[in-house]
């Protein structure tokens, strides 16, 4: 599996490229801005961007979506049918996503936004703004906050402890670290 993290200069957002080493098909997770480093990496590695997964519909995760779609014939996947002003294929908890020989699974993680989704791939999970290193996403109500915590416990903390967590902002973590030490859960 090819993996690359990008720190985007829009609200310190993270973007990630995951690609299949065999087919060179690539997945982009969130795109606050489509900067030159992102395009350069895809080109240098000989990757074809086939899928863009949007964890939730906030500008600091979708701001570069239109530019990405202008450059690449990629399918957009999200928890609702339209994100960042672009059409998306709506995905739901348990849906499978294939990137070449890589198999991903969509996990529902609403709370920060109603349509929030995460994606698990072998050894990694992308959590958007639902779960951060040592924190969780902001919510508008206590009900949303409870919903978020419940979904994280059920869908993220049920993954093996050594699975790496890649959030929408800030550093990565592991399921074991967050389950044991995140102040919102411990």
């Amino acid at each position, binding site marked *: 599996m090819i993996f690359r993290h990008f720190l985007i200069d829009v609200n310190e957002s993270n973007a990630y490229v995951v690609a299949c080493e065999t087919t060179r098909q690539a997945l982009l997770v969130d795109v606050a801005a489509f900067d030159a480093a992102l395009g350069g990496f895809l080109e240098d590695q000989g990757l074809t961007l086939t899928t863009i997964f949007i964890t939730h519909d906030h500008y600091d995760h979708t701001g570069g979506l239109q530019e990405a779609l202008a450059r690449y014939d990629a399918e957009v996947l999200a928890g609702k049918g339209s994100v960042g002003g672009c059409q998306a294929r709506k995905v739901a908890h348990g849906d499978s996503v294939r990137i070449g020989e890589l198999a991903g699974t969509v996990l529902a993680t609403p709370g920060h936004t109603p349509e929030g989704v995460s994606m698990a791939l072998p050894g*990694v999970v992308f959590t958007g703004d639902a779960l951060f*290193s*040592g924190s969780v996403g902001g919510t508008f109500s206590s009900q949303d906050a409870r919903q978020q915590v419940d979904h994280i416990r059920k869908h993220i903390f049920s993954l093996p402890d050594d699975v790496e967590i890649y959030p929408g902002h800030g*550093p990565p*973590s592991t399921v*074991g*670290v967050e389950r044991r*030490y995140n102040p919102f859960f411990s």
Partner: protein
Amino acid sequence: MTSRHYSPAPCALEGCARNAVTGAQRCWQHLENRDAFINALASQDLENAWLVEVDLSDRDLSGAKLAGARLSGADLSRTDLSGADLRGAFLDEADLRAANLSDANLEFAVLGGADVSDACFKDANLRRANLVGTRARRADFTEADLYYSRPGNADFQEAILANASIERAIFRKANLAGATLSGSRGSPNLENANLDGVKR
């Protein structure tokens, strides 16, 4: 960095569910000649290496290129990692007690659940580092850069953060009792942190 540690080879020992360490065919637990393995590390490219649970205690790894390496659960106690490149490395639950990490680059590194008590991080780059639940008693972060790091639930009792940058660092529920913050710069999040006896 282009990480490949997500596809490590499985340990060659039948029935073992662990992954082989980089440069060998077996996991650390089943490696037969550990000394030879460690001696050979110096000549290897260790970026993105799989080194889970290895024992590199008391070794000299100063200046080592370990960006993106997976060192979860490793024993690095008293190891000299000064000036090492550990950007994005996973050191979760590692034993780094009394290690020397002065001038090391730990941006985006994961130190969650690690024990760094009595370690030296002078002038280290810990920008955006994961320090969730890290045990950092008496650790020395003098002049270190902890911008937007995440020391939530961490134990920083009697840690030295003199002249450190702690802008946007999130010390939520951290224990900073007796820590030295004199000369530290920035506005950290100290929500529910224990600040008893903090020296400013």
